């Protein structure tokens, strides 16, 4: 008994940080996802000139909680022809893979579950791709035509864009020279430039491919409501459905984090090595103060007392965050001898701010595309993947390789390396566009004869 207690204490001493991170993620991620959905609905409403959810709580802020309760107490329907075990297992698998891939993501230099694994980014990509098993099994187990079609589409889509995304990651990794997440970000600090700027074509390819992989509009064919009712989720209701929903949004956060880490400098501020731009460190607290002030200005315009009170509360929260963000940058100014002691605080607080800021921007872009673009047809989707993105990403790897050699011979470093990589990226893009143009020309000659196949996908 003594030995067991001793062992437990030793174990907790070693692994308390990852355990805490894990519990926090599992406890709060559903809530965060709920609010991401609310933000998405609000943004959609704003872009369509309406208000969005307004009834539950001030400005609809309690809507996610109401939705969660509704889904939890909803009647559970399992179709009688379904494979019960697989039907039960599929959403669990989907959500498990999505949450597990978060283990490799580092929000700041300290906040990471799998800190020392040296295959960091490969782990994230590999595990998150396993979520497709949940979708395919779920679609197969429901024994419905729509579900099966959605599952097949989802599998084909993931498979087609995984290659392009992997190639895009390779282009970024050429500059990093490591797979470890922390080392990738440190490499960007050393070189003083984001890899997304050095390899813009790779970033673009990853952006498109990640939208397709997470089944988001305009590539949301697996759940295309105008053709397939709800795709692979057709037969799922209540809590099982919400698990799929959680998996989808977690996957969005995962791909956004991967893109942020590899292409957007992770937890680094813009221009991490440029000394005269150090005033950028004051940007986060000032931003928070600005948001708080805007909330205070809007208070008199709120129609209800509860909304006025709420706006003041939000402003207070913003000022508090501004204070937290300001401490690590103001202390060295006031008392330079404390600068070394505040350094880890600065890395932690500002690191998470910049990381979450970049991830939010990436997610905002996802949502923006969803509200703006119409859905692709399945053959168009496949054509974009196999005829454009895959050749583009392969060519991009090669030209980036050439650019790196040229850069070494000309002794180009940091921002100067752009002189070599930017022309290379333009050449890659031109070649891919040339292929596409040539193909469209030949496609126009062939068009007309092809019969459409309604069972094609």
């Amino acid at each position, binding site marked *: 008994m003594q030995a067991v207690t001793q062992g437990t204490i030793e174990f907790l001493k070693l692994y308390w940080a990852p355990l805490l991170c894990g519990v926090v993620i599992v406890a709060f991620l559903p809530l965060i996802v709920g609010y991401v959905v609310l933000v998405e609905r609000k943004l959609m409403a704003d872009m369509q000139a309406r208000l969005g959810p307004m009834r539950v709580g001030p400005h609809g802020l309690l809507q996610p909680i109401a939705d969660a309760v509704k889904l939890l107490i909803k009647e559970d329907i399992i179709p009688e022809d379904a494979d019960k075990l697989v039907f039960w297992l599929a959403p669990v698998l989907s959500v498990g893979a999505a949450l597990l891939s978060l283990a490799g993501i580092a929000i700041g230099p300290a906040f990471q*579950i799998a800190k020392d694994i040296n295959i960091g980014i490969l782990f994230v990509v590999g595990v998150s791709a396993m979520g497709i098993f949940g979708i395919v099994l779920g679609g197969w187990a429901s*024994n419905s035509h729509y579900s099966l079609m959605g599952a097949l589409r989802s599998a084909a889509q993931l498979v087609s864009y995984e290659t392009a995304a992997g190639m895009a990651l390779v282009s970024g990794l050429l500059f990093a*020279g490591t797979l470890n997440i922390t080392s990738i970000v440190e490499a960007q600090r050393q070189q003083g430039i984001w890899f997304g700027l050095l390899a813009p074509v790779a970033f673009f390819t990853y952006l498109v491919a990640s939208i397709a992989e997470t089944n988001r509009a305009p590539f949301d064919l697996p759940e295309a409501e105008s053709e397939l009712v709800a795709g692979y989720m057709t037969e799922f209701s209540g809590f099982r459905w919400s698990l799929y929903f959680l998996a989808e949004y977690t996957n969005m956060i995962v791909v956004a984090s991967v893109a942020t880490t590899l292409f957007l400098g992770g937890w680094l501020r813009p221009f991490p090595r440029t000394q005269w731009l150090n005033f950028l460190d004051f940007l986060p607290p000032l931003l928070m103060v600005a948001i708080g002030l805007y909330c205070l200005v809007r208070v008199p315009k709120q129609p209800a007392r509860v909304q006025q009170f709420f706006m003041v509360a939000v402003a207070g929260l913003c000022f508090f965050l501004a204070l937290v963000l300001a401490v690590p940058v103001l202390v060295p100014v006031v008392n330079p001898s404390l600068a070394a002691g505040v350094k880890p605080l600065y890395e932690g607080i500002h690191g998470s701010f910049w990381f979450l800021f970049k991830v939010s921007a990436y997610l905002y872009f996802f949502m923006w595309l969803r509200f703006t673009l119409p859905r692709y047809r399945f053959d168009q989707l496949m054509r974009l993947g196999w005829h454009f993105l895959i050749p583009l990403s392969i060519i991009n790897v*090669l030209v980036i390789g050439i650019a790196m050699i040229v850069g070494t011979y000309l002794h180009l470093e940091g921002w100067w390396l752009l002189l070599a990589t930017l022309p290379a990226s333009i050449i890659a893009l031109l070649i891919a566009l040339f292929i596409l143009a040539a193909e469209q020309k030949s496609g126009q000659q062939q068009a007309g004869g092809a019969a459409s196949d309604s069972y094609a996908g």
Partner: protein
Amino acid sequence: MPGAYLPVLIYAVLVIAFPAVTLILAKYIRPTSTSYGAKLKPYECGIAPEGGSRGRYSVRFYIIAMLFVIFDVETMFLIPWAILYRGWVAAHTGLFALVSMFVFLGILLVGYVWLYKKGALEWA
């Protein structure tokens, strides 16, 4: 360093347990289902479902899956090369590394062009 994966293992257990436990707990919260008859049939826009859904589907899905294996293995081979490439370039042996990768990718590109001509990458 296998010790580095221990937190991941613990987290994996936690993460699989979370949806499974909530699914079981939700059973006790929600009312018991009294559905019968057509409500338990697969949804097919209101009409009675026609036949089982596990019939045949387009062969293109199989082709795509096979192509994926080829191209994804290629990506996997590229990743070790990519993380070592920086060091090689710094040591001025980058040209050899690049040419070897050109040859590898060149063979694959020939295969890609062949697939393209055969129409394997066409969907409709």
